[in-house]
Each structure stands twice: as C-alpha cells, then as structure tokens.
C-alpha cells in the first residue's frame, strides 16, 4: 500500500548492516543458474490496477515491475540504466535529456521509442499519477529530437538528483500506441499491462491470482529471464499465508505478509530466509501526529514530554521484533546524503516527562489524570494498531488518559486529514525517493483539507515553508542536503509530528529462490536474474 525509494550514498552499507538482521545472503556466483520453473508469490492486498504510470504504489510494482520497466532502476551500486541508457541535465536545470535504449520492443511487437516516453510523461506522469503530479507540475513538454532521445523541459529548475531518485518508481513509460486516443483511466491495458519487461502479462483473476510468463524476446539477451513463469496469489489472511509458505505452496511473502509472530517463528526455520534486505528503499515511519488546534498540544513542552514518555526501544523490540530503529525526523537513515543524525533527541525518561508536564501547567488531578486525549490509530495492520496501544499505555504512566477511537481506512483518513476530529493520531508513512516528493508534505503548510498524509495538523512555520520550497528546486546537491539537514533539526526541535520509528518491510523467502533481495527495491524490480533451485 505504500511506495518509496531511498537515495544511496556511502551511508548505504552502514544502514544495511543495521537492518539486515537474519537475511542470509546467497552467493549466487557459486552456483550455475537453472532455467525454468514457476515462482509463486503471496500478496496480502490487491491494488486491482496494473499500470505503474497511473498508480504509484509498491502493491502495483510488486506485480508490474516484472512486466513494465522504468527508465532507470536502482542497484546497490547506484542508478542502473534500464530503458534509458544515459541522462544529463542542462546547466540551468530546465532541461533533462534521456538517451533511450535501442532495439527494445513492447510485448506486442512494436518498437519502444521517445513517443512512448513523451506521451506517458505528459498524459500520465504529469496528469494522473499520484505524487508524480507534484514532481512533474512544472513539466512543459517532452521533445523527441530523434526516436531515442527524450528531452524533458521544465519551467522551473528540476534538480537532477531529485529526478533520478524519483524515476525508478515514478518513471515507467507505457506504450503510447495502446493509449493514444482512449480514455486513459478506463483503458483495458490498465489491468492487462503491455510492457518491455522480462515477463509478459497472461491473466488476472481478481481476488485470486495474476500470472505472467517468460518473454522470449527480452532485450537483455536470450538467457534472461531464468524463470518460466511468475504467479502472484492473493492470500489476505496472514495465518493462511504462513501455512502456504510452510506447505511449500508459496515461495515469497513480501511487505510483511504474515504476522510478526510467524515472522519470528519462520526466521528460525532453515527452509526460509527472513529479513529486511532488499527493502532499503521502502522505509516507513511509525508516527505520532498532533492536532495543534488543541491548546494543550500546541504547547511544545507537552509534545516534548510525550516524546520522553515513549520507550521507543521497547516498542521496537516488542512490536517490530527488532526489525526497526528509532526515527530521527522526516528523513530516514537510508535517505543518503539528505540524512543526518545530528538532531535533538528525546530519550525515554518518565520522570522528566512528568516534570515537563507539571512545568507546562498540567498537574495530575486527584485521580492521577492530567488531561485526556482522543487518539485515532490508522488501520494499516499489525504495527500501527499495536503502536497505538503502546502509545496509550505509555502516556497513562505519565498521567495522560488516551481514548483510542478505532476506525477503518476511509474513516481514519477523513477523521484526521479532512475533519481534524482528533487530538493525536498514529499512522505509517513511507519515505518516497526524496524528501521533496515525500515527507516534506508533513511540514509544508497549505495543503487543501482532506489531502491524506499531509500537514493537516494546524502547524505552520513560514521559515520551514520557505526552506522546503527552496530545497525543491536547488540544483546543487550539497546545498540541497544542507537544507534537508536543517529541516530535520527543526522538525526534531519543534515536533510538529513525531517520526518515532523507522522500519523497512520484511520478506519471508523460500531458500529455493536464488538471487532474491539483491537490489534495494527488490520486490518492485524486474527479477530478470531470479531463479528457482529445484
């Protein structure tokens, strides 16, 4: 249900070491890859749309990543050319040029050219793709000087590192010849995609499965892909998903498709690799969100006291079973150069929290209660529900009574982001590629009421707003990173939102799959080198 890409620099190795808990790295060089076989993948939810240029979500890429390819992908060594072979930016940042790969054919036999890129960029990325509409809002035109060169023209400077960070997720060209002149949102290929990838779409049975089979004309060469077929099965019940893994009916369960109790149990089973490797790009924050319209919460001391009252390490151990680390503001530790850990922190200290609440003018009453808060937990699965309960229990210990208002997804999104009917809320939000197209919306004021995952908290700072806008079009990567470090520091000092815990997703993978989780966005990638040892 979420997407993200992270940016990688020298920090990557450190971040990986910290995250990779039990994932066993398989030395693929030691074995000769075998051709053939069907990989079966479990999915918890179903996006029902299979067009990555209309819906930016890992739930879509998990399937379409094998069928439709992006211009650029990401590997542990940096950006990897896929449909684009070279890229460059003009001095003023107003023109970005991609050289496109020659000799690539769509699955229906047509050539892949700049027309496809131009059509998709102008009609889908700029108009219809969530998050991309912000990224591409200043895109004026995509010119095609020759069939294999695409020139993106912007009315305001577009930082190259922002564009690159966004492209693996938000840069999938679709075949123009199948979309031109049709109602794009109702085009039949949205659920039966035609791409250039190593696998061709075969069948989508809603609520049951998707099948894709080997593309014999794949541009990387005859030996790729190794697999004959991939099947995605929708198994919503997490216990049933764990049973399917154990019975050998499923080879991979990604994005925490089984319960955490089963994650822990299967991690001790030597038939499976369990871990967070391959999710470095898919890091999310578990948050505490404040409604600053409430005068109690508008007091910075109260927010800081709440942070001090939360035993983050205990939450990580009990809820996330160690597969997480404490948050440090709106950029996660996998955020590359834009990340800094030089920020104010709030270590767990109940006595200090109590003292700060006294100081703020909220002494405990006769019943030990200082004040009451109405809290909305997001229904995004095990983490968010348990984190809400953990939060309520922690605050009870310092004399804050938290009433939890349980709600389903539309109820939560409208209750918090449109009606502002909450005191505190907790959710989970992914870092997407670059702060400019992801977490900055938590701090930037001015989003219309009802826009989910934005600053609907009644918190506003002119300084922060100006800095966010400047960073989004700053061309010098170093200056840009400096701005994001400053924004992180302000966010940790002012606490408009608590970015309490950062956690990647977890996969349970059968050891029969070889070459799995070998890129930082593996579950979204093309799997051309994945093979089955059986």
């Amino acid at each position, binding site marked *: 249900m979420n997407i993200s890409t992270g940016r990688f620099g020298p920090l990557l190795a450190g971040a990986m070491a910290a995250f990779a808990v039990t994932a066993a790295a398989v030395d693929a060089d030691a074995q000769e890859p075998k051709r053939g076989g069907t990989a079966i993948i479990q999915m918890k939810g179903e996006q029902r749309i299979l067009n990555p240029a209309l819906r930016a979500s890992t739930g879509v890429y998990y399937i379409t990543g094998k069928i439709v390819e992006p211009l650029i992908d990401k590997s542990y060594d940096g950006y990897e050319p896929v449909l684009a072979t070279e890229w460059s930016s003009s001095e003023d940042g107003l023109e970005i040029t991609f050289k496109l790969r020659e000799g690539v054919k769509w699955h229906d036999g047509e050539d892949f050219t700049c027309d496809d890129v131009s059509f998709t960029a102008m009609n889908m990325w700029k108009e219809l793709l969530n998050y991309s509409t912000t990224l591409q809002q200043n895109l004026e035109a995509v010119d095609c000087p020759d069939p294999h060169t695409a020139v993106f023209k912007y009315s305001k400077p577009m930082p190259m590192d922002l564009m690159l960070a966004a492209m693996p997720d938000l840069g999938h060209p679709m075949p123009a010849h199948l979309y031109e002149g049709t109602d794009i949102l109702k085009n039949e290929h949205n659920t039966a995609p035609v791409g250039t990838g190593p696998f061709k779409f075969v069948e989508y049975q*809603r609520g049951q499965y998707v099948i894709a089979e080997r593309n014999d004309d794949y541009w990387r060469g005859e030996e790729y892909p190794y697999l004959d077929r991939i099947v995605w099965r929708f198994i919503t019940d997490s216990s049933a998903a764990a049973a399917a893994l154990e*019975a050998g009916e499923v080879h991979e369960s990604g994005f925490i498709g089984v319960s955490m109790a089963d994650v822990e149990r299967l991690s001790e089973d030597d038939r499976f690799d369990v871990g967070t490797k391959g999710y470095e790009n898919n890091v999310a924050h578990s948050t505490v969100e404040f409604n600053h319209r409430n005068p109690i919460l508008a007091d910075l001391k109260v927010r800081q006291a709440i942070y001090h009252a939360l035993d983050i390490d205990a939450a990580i151990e009990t809820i996330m079973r160690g597969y997480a680390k404490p948050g440090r503001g709106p950029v996660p530790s996998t955020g590359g150069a834009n990340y800094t850990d030089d920020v104010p922190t709030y270590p767990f200290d109940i006595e200090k929290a109590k003292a700060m609440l006294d100081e703020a003018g909220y002494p405990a009453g006769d019943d030990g209660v200082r004040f009451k808060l109405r809290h909305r937990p997001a229904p995004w699965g095990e983490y968010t529900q348990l984190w809400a309960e953990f939060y309520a229990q922690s605050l009870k210990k310092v004399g804050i009574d938290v009433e939890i208002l349980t709600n389903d997804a539309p109820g939560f999104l409208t209750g918090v982001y449109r009606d502002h009917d909450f005191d505190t809320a907790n959710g989970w939000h992914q870092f997407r590629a670059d702060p400019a197209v992801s977490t900055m919306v938590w701090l930037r004021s001015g989003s219309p009421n009802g826009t989910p995952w934005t600053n609907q908290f009644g918190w506003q700072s002119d300084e922060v707003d100006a800095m966010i806008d400047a960073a989004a079009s700053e061309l010098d990567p170093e200056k840009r990173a400096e701005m994001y470090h400053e924004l992180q520091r302000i966010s940790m000092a002012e606490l408009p939102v608590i970015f309490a815990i950062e956690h990647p997703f977890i996969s349970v993978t059968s050891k029969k799959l070889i070459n799995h989780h070998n890129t930082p966005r593996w579950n979204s990638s093309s799997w051309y080198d994945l093979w089955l040892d059986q």
Partner: protein
Amino acid sequence: MPILIYALRRALQAVPVIILIMIGAFLLLKLAPGDTVDALVGDMGGADAQFIARLRAEYGLDQPIWVQLWRYMIKFLQFDFGWSFVYEQPVSVVLMERIGTTLMLMAASLFFAFTFGVGLGAIAARKAYSTTDNVISTLGLVFYATPSFFLSLMMIVVFSVKLGWLPVGGIKTVAGFYTGWKHVWDVALHLVMPTAALSLIYLAFYLRLMRASVLEVAELDYVRTARAKGAGEARLMFHHIMRNALLPVITLLGLQFSTLLGGSVVVESVFSLPGLGSLAYQSVVQRDLNTLMGIIFMSSVVVVAVNFLTDLLYARLDSRIELA
C-alpha cells in the same frame, strides 16, 4: 394455473420492496465516513490534492448526494449496475466472477449440513438420552461453539502443513493448468476444507432443531394412532414423524439460503476463496458503493425468491397449508 398467478403477484409485490431497499441502502452507505476515493488513496499510500480532486470529479463524487442517488437509480432501473472504481470493471462483471465460487461453496455446505444434520438429529431423537444421543448432541455442541476461523486454521495446520494432503487455499492450483476431470478433481480438493468448515457449523443448527422437532412430533396423538393401527417403526419415522418434523427445519433452511449469496467472510478469507462474502466486506472497507449496491440487489432478489420457494415447499409437505 393458480400457482403462476400466485408467483406473478408475489413478483409484482417485490418490485417496490426492492426499490425501497436500494434507496435505503444507498443513503445508509453514504452515512459512513469517507468515500471510495479516500479508500483508494489510502491503498495507494497517498496522493496529492489535485489528483484527489480529479478522481472525485471523474467518479461523480463531487455532486450532492441527491444527484448521485438520482443518477444511480435511473441507471439501476435500466438494469445497469454501474462501474466499480475499485475493480475498474463493470459491477455486473465483478459480481459474475464471484458468484460461481460462492454458489458452489454454499450449496455444497448447505447440502452436506442439511442431510447429515437432519439424519443425525432424527437418530438422536429416536434414541433420546442414550449414549448415541449423548455423543451426537455433544458433537453438535462442539461444532456449534467452535468459531469457524479456528476450525479452518486447525484444519489447515493438520491437513495441509503437517500431512500435506490438501491445498492451503484458493479455488484451484494456479500454475497447474489442468483441464477436464483433472480440473474438476483439483477444484474439489480445494473445496474440501472450506466446505467442511462451513457446514459443520450449519450442521449443528439442523441437528439440534431436528432432534427437538422429532421429539415433539413423536408425542403427538396422530403418531400414537398410527402406532396403534400397526405402522412399523420405519414407516412411522419416515412417513409420519419426519415429514412433519421437517417444517421448522425447512424454515431455517429457507432463512439460511437467503444468506447464501452473502457467503462467509471468515471462511472465504482464510481459504483465499474469491466469493461474494469477502467481496461485500471489501466493498464496505473500500466504500465501493456500486459493487455493494449490486450485491444488495442480488441478495434481495434471492431473499424474495427463496421465501416464495419456501412457501411452495410448505404447501407440499403439509397439505393443510394453502397458497393464497
């Protein structure tokens, strides 16, 4: 043909009822917080304001509720159930894809439950308060009290994970590409555990009702008369007692048949079966109004039809009851 006239009258009476149900359901569903765009955006992991506004205009959700209701009803009266924005397909297609699985599962479960429930109930009643009765009644109680998700998961652990006899879930082996009898056998294997899980609970209902009903009827005067004129135990049981004892069981069967299209959310989700139950649940969570209205429509039609059939069956079982 009085029965045809009777059927026609019942059908005509049903039309305003169904229209009222549809209007009521539409307004009720609109009371829930949030709409399908909120749900879709939630699924995507977020979107920006322009995107959301555009989607809402595209789906007609920016219009006042009365306009939306008017548009829906106009289409509905032409038997057009609209477009599901969640599935990106016409609602009729979404429903047709699901209905087969649900019918197969529910028909198998109800048949199994009815046959065995009635049989066991009758045996238990004839041997009332014996060991046989105690065993049957206790089993019934256990089935009745076991939550279906627990029963389902335990069966999966035993028969799929430990023994490896039966598939964990789904309706067929996806990458098997079986055809002909192999396909039938494959689907049957996949349905064994869900059918068992669902029918054991229904079975308990029928068993207890049948036992009580047979005990009651067996005390009646006409049974004593039949016994006095020399009817054998078997004839007494099948001809005299069971026929009358079945009436309340038929009532229950009629009621449960009405929920047939609803399927079972729990069993369908544990066994990953694409049925109407999980579709209805998903549609509520997704605020997929058109799909949900389609399901409500089908269900109301089935309720009306089953009520009619139940009445016919009553008249057949007990000729004192007349159709009017």
